[in-house]
């Protein structure tokens, strides 16, 4: 059972975890016993997530027993869960005054301060307490609050620390991933601004500009930037590669044989500067494969694979080219290697099935065919799930 308030979720399980601690703690002076009707009623409201009722109940108990730190904690938590973080802060501070080492109260105080926008005070608490929080739900909520506070306070390093911790503990959480996107985007933006101000005439500025222009599909402008970089830094690795890649990224009707030739020359120039650029070898291999120049394709893919033995696509390209050139026996090894590197890639298994089949290895061919079908189904299902997630489930429309 969850209490949903903007930006935070507190599970009833988390809150119930507090129950066990309450009875173990002492109080300064006599309090209404836990078995009293008032206490029982407040506790029940707390347990069922009726926060307003819990607030009323524990307010009464606190009034009756102002020295009871546990009642202050419960009240503070109920106020936090009810979306009244500012009130929770006051109560939780009191709990800590009554029992300075009260860890749970400090945890919730940090979260409440952040929620109430009192980030300057919240951040040191969260930074210190988050790694020690054992309760996962509170850890998540507090961590997200820490991210928001850090970003608001322009403390990007702190924000990154919070994000790293959250990403480690909640790797599949959509909200965590969403916040990570924004933190890193903001970091990126601020870093680029610093670059612009501190090194305005550096080639790195042009490079950044070219990247931004590419994302806006202003291909010609981006190409001009790359060429300007090369004019002053002709031996800078990576620029010819980027230019080649840009030329191949043009809209379909703009990629002509001339463009392809130009792109090919860029990748070749890249290799003159940086012979270890496996990416350039790979793209040259692809261009040759698409032009049905199998010998060249095999040569380039082989180079890419030698330069980077973990470059699965290079091995796949090599295998495909050998299959297309009817050199089925030679295609087996690179495709087998690719299948180990990317076991979930259906295309690899298909081409391997063809290679096995053509070399008389029927059982292996059938095994790869079956694997192809399994991986295809898996990929199709994943795609369907994404589609459904984005477009909504199938439904009849008027």
């Amino acid at each position: 059972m969850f209490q949903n308030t903007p930006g935070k979720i507190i599970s009833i399980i988390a809150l119930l975890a507090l129950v066990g601690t309450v009875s173990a703690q002492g109080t300064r002076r006599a309090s209404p016993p836990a078995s009293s009707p008032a206490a029982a009623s407040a506790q029940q409201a707390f347990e069922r997530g009726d926060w307003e009722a819990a607030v009323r109940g524990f307010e009464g108990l606190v009034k009756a027993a102002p020295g009871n730190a546990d009642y202050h904690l419960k009240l503070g938590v109920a106020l936090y869960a009810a979306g009244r973080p500012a009130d929770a802060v006051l109560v939780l501070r009191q709990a800590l005054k009554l029992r300075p080492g009260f860890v749970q109260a400090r945890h919730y105080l940090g979260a409440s301060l952040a929620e109430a926008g009192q980030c300057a005070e919240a951040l040191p608490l969260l930074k210190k307490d988050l790694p020690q929080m054992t309760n996962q739900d509170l850890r998540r909520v507090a961590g997200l609050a820490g991210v928001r506070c850090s970003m608001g306070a322009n403390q990007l390093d702190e924000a990154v620390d919070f994000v790293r911790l959250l990403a480690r503990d909640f790797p599949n959480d959509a909200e965590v991933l969403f916040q990570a996107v924004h933190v890193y985007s903001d970091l990126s933006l601020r870093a680029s601004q610093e670059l612009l101000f501190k090194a305005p005439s550096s080639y790195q500025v042009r490079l950044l500009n070219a990247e931004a222009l590419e994302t806006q599909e202003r291909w010609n402008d981006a190409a001009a930037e790359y060429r300007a970089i090369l004019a002053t830094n002709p031996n800078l690795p990576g620029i010819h590669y980027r230019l080649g890649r840009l030329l191949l990224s043009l809209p379909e009707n703009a990629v002509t044989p001339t463009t392809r030739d130009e792109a090919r020359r860029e990748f070749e120039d890249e290799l003159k500067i940086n012979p270890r650029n496996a990416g350039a070898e790979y793209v040259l291999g692809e261009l040759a494969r698409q032009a049905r120049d199998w010998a060249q394709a095999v040569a380039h893919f082989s180079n890419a694979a030698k330069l980077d033995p973990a470059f699965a696509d290079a091995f796949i390209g090599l295998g495909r080219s050998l299959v297309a050139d009817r050199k089925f026996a030679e295609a087996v090894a690179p495709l087998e290697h690719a299948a180990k590197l990317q076991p979930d890639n259906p295309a690899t298994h298909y081409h391997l099935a063809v290679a096995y089949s053509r070399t008389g290895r029927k059982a292996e061919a059938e095994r790869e065919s079956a694997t192809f079908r399994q991986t295809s189904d898996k990929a199709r299902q994943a795609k369907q799930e994404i589609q459904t997630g984005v477009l909504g489930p199938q439904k009849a429309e008027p």
Partner: protein
Amino acid sequence: MRPFFILTCFLSVSLMASAPTAGQSVVQFSDVTKAAGIGFVHLRGSNGISTILEEAGPGVGVADYDNDGYPDIYFVNGRDLYGRGIAARNALYRNNGDGTFGDVTDKAGVPGSGYGIGCVWGDYDNDGNADLYVTQYGKNILYHNNGDGTFSDVTDKAGVGATEFGAVFHSGATFFDYDRDGHPDLYVGSYVTFGPNSRRTCLLGSGVPTSCPPSVYPGTPAVLYHNNGDGTFTNVTKAARIFQPNGKNLSVGACDYDNDGWPDLFVANDGVEAYLYHNNRNGTFTDVAMTAGVALTADGGTMAAMCISHGDYDNDGNLDLYISDFQAVPDRVFRNDGKGFFDEVSDEVGIAEPTRSVLSFGGGFFDYDNDGWLDIFIANGHVYPEVEQATPGVRYKQLNQLFHNDGTGRFVEVTKTSGNGFATPRAARGAAFADFDNDGNVDVVVANNNDPPLLLRNSGAAGHHFLNFKLVGTKSNHDATGARVRVRAGGLTQIREIAAGGSYFSHSDLRAHFGLGKNSRVESVEVSWPSGARQTFRNVEADRFYLIEEGKDQIQSQKTGRPVVRR
């Protein structure tokens, strides 16, 4: 001579003077639809944005149902599914033998009973009369040809409605005698699960609503029926080991791809790997598409695979495969290497680039200029009427294409120089081939979505000879589906295999047509019958329509009703 024949003759004569150059055709295809009296118009039946069902059809089927020697045409129609009172029915056009056709649907009693999708002709009871199977949305129909110009709906009696597995969106079908018992069996393809509660529209491009692609819907199982020889069929899909619950069959075609004498079955699926069912000769099949190299493209991608056509385009004695594909991807030619494998050679043969800019449906291999090399006709048209809003430069209605086989393993596009038959863009779907006027040149009929069909008359190439064979089985099935004819002439050996269905939801004239180039005689004609019998005829004169009856030593003339055309 009829006036239009004189006109087309004049056209042919005037064209004879020019020698063909690369990319230019002296053969002209003329649109004679109206002149032929064909007034049929396909009804898509959409209500606003059309659905995947409404964009699917139609197919067209050609057969000489009344055995007068002239191929007739059956057009499949859509229906009004929204209760607006729009009447529509399928149409049977009888070939009058004079260049015109007459609508005999009512007399014949073959209107169809639901939203029509495709059709296939086949003499399932071997009584000498072509029967008709119509695939529909819902239960399909088998019309028995009564032999007197009328048909009877025998679907329930035969047990071939094809809804046993819950599939209702049917697609292509074919008659083929898979167990070689002399009775043609029936495979009925099935497409996607689409019903009243299914998603009807999706977004194209930047948000233009249109019909949904097949990937949105689950697949459905097809059905294989064994012909019991008594007018009934038995569903043997599971027993034959070809039950595929998630298939998205479009076209299907049977042929003996590995030359072992037993018909195999190729099934084109839309966006799912294709199936090549190898006949195990014991009533079962094994899907070998993956290992044979035809399940996917050379790049490992699936095909939209609307059309299947088998033909030996390189005259090496092995049946190759043409498969049509979607917009922005090439159509496919798979070359049969004779060892049980296919290699995709779409780029090598020159078909890839010219077909990227179109969305191809029906068509296939045929020798339009009688030079002895199979050419390719492709019927094109998009599936989304709204595509022009989403992707400027892509048209919904598109021009069909014609590719000439230059005899060196390459196809050269000759569309632009092949006559007014290629001038009008349409949303073309099914296509079928037949020599409708028995002049020795294979014509084409194209079924268009929500438009009239297109009947293209082939003017022929002067100086090129032909042979046309009608095969009649006696021990083998009467239609002789599965029979193979091998003709040797002038150093060239050609094969044709008699096959029902194919193209896109369509069916072509079953007569085997051969172009002979300059050869006015052929050294030999060999027929391999499904029964296992073989017959050879030597020193056969060209430019004839022959009838070959299984077991008879003499080659006979077909009843064509026209004088033989001498060249």
